[in-house]
């Protein structure tokens, strides 16, 4: 128990240290850190609407984050989130453009599924390239990220562009207003809180279930634990890595669909820059997953916290005239501190736990039992 407590405490402390850095930066910029904190609070949870907006902002992070945890448990780091979000968004947009007349109760699930497929494809491609062409997945995901941004720009400025834009000559890369039947219904009237938030939470729970309660998830974790042992037990490592990337990608793809169909303008729009559509959710999701201890369920509150940081940052900029990039820098610092803290945590656990005051032996036994389980199952 103590270990678990420590496990949760250390990252939290790490985040506090990171926030202290943030406060120092604010002071250096001539702003009052307390006012800064107030602005972040106010901007993110200062009113019912703002809380809803924060939840909406956190939604893609939950999804991407949950996907990252699945990939991570298979020992793959998925940095292709950006491409997967875009892929899902594009496919879902095309579906909505193709079938605008379908009733909402069909169209909404349809676009979400399309998002999952679109993202899944973008996740599976690096996996397949690795398995069949020995192309390293870090290389292919990085390249795919770049390619999909350009492809999106091409589509949104070309075949998918809003005809009105062509007339007006302004040609912003956006689609026409998509069918209202595909719009994610608002759950709480008067706020931005829409179905997408619930879908994201459900997806994170499903991710957890898959990982720990199904044979599929079991094999993924086995591969993550030890590819050699898994292979020896007859598990196809390459296929499972591809699967992990594909699942991770589909979750990101759903995030993409939600970004489109939960937006105020009900259309897919970008400004042409790399993060113009995704606002770096593909990377921020990694941060959220990390802060959630790389566990799908904990990703939910963690993503909410990061969503709060992001929405709060806009308020920070408005009120204190501090550039929102401060929040970006702070994000980075938090990641660095938290990810470094795992060693601190295990050091603390070993040093303090050695006194065996808090039943550390039990914990170890639990872990050993789990490992045996893995081996047993693998040999059947």
């Amino acid at each position, binding site marked *: 128990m103590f270990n678990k407590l420590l496990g949760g405490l250390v990252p939290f402390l790490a985040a506090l240290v990171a926030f202290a850095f943030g406060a120092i930066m604010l002071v250096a910029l001539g702003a009052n850190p307390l006012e800064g904190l107030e602005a972040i609070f106010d901007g993110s949870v200062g009113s019912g609407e703002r809380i809803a907006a924060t939840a909406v902002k956190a939604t893609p992070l939950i999804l991407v984050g949950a996907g990252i945890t699945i990939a991570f448990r298979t020992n793959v780091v998925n940095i292709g989130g950006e491409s997967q979000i875009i892929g899902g968004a594009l496919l879902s947009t095309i579906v909505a453009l193709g079938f605008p007349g379908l009733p909402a109760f069909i169209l909404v699930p349809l676009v979400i599924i399309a998002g999952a497929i679109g993202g899944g494809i973008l996740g599976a491609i690096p996996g397949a390239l690795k398995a069949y062409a020995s192309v390293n997945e870090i290389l292919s995901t990085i390249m795919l990220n770049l390619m999909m941004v350009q492809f999106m720009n091409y589509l949104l400025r070309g075949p998918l562009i809003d005809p009105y834009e062509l007339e*007006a000559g*302004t040609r*912003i890369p956006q689609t026409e207003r998509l069918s209202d039947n595909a719009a994610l219904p608002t759950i709480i009237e008067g706020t931005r809180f829409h179905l997408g938030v619930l879908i994201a939470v459900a997806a994170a729970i499903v991710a957890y279930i898959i990982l720990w309660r199904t044979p599929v998830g079991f094999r993924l974790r086995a591969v993550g634990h030890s590819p050699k042992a898994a292979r020896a037990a007859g598990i196809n490592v390459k296929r499972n890595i591809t699967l992990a990337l594909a699942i991770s990608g589909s979750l990101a793809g759903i995030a993409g669909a939600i970004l489109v169909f939960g*937006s105020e303008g009900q259309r897919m729009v970008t400004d042409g820059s790399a993060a113009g559509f995704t606002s770096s959710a593909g990377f921020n999701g990694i941060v959220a997953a990390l802060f959630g201890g790389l566990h799908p369920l904990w990703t939910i509150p963690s993503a909410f916290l990061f969503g709060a940081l992001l929405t709060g940052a*806009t308020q920070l*900029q*408005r009120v204190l005239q501090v550039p929102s*990039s401060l929040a970006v820098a702070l994000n980075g610092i938090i990641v660095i501190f938290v990810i470094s803290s795992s060693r601190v945590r295990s050091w603390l656990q070993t040093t303090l736990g050695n006194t065996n005051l808090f039943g550390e032996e039990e914990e170890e036994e639990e872990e050993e039992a789990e490992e045996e389980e893995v081996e047993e199952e693998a040999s059947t």
Partner: protein
Amino acid sequence: MLGVLALGAAACGSDDSSGGGGALTMAIVAPSASDDLAFSQSMVDSVNALERDITLQVTDGTFIVEDAAAAIRGYAEDGVDVIVAHGTQFGASLAEIAPDFPDTTFIWGTATDTQGLDNVFAYAPAADEGGYVNGVVAAAISETGVIGVVGPVEAGDAVAYINGFVTAAEAGGATVNVTYTGSFGDVALAAEAAEAHLANNADVLTGTAQMVVGAVGVASDAGVPWFGTQSNQTSLDPNLVVASQVYHWEFILEEMLELRDNGTKGGQAFEINLANGGLIIEFNDGFDLSDDVKAAAEAAIEGIKDGSIDTGA
């Protein structure tokens, strides 16, 4: 330099005593930095140039539409009187936000219609006009007859400017090579795009958007004259910048604010052009132009004003 001074004055609080309407709170939400020597700066400079008692807040760098929407909504909730949504891509969000705040005036551009909302004013620059004038001068001073254009993406006022420029330059006998780099921010790409033009014998360059500073750098190195747009870009190279088409939004902004004073909170679209003084071609005194060329430029300006010249927009 004007821009820097204006920003400095604004930082010290309101400067001018009210010379026309009453005091107002205003806010600008802009997609790029407010001192980017381009699009966003033009709006900030213009608001600061208004002769009214204005308390101004600026949120810049919000190129993500949802973030900008949050900022716009935030200002509206705070009770700001007039909010400038300085980005075409913010239109869809504005359509959702504006109806929630009927007493607030929203000013949106670059856009040519107000989406039927009666508390939204729209504004757009006739960027092709300045492009045309720049093109006339460019063709006149080019010795090789080849001119290079570095654009971001084929959209908005960028394409209008470039089209006007190309029409005039080609009418003046020059060959114009246009490259859209595909990005608003990739400075390195813009620089190499300029190099590519130079390799094709271009001896005059122009371009638009934030990344264009890369291209200007290349022009500086090669001693090649540069034409700017959106803001006065002379500071980038006081020896080589020939002229800039500068957006002076203050003229139409003042009109909009007066309408608001008299009860009309929106519903009209405005354009800045050479005729109404919203577009000004600011020549760089540090670059010598022969009298013939200056005369040709003046003739072009007059021709556009009285409608006799078609800029091919």
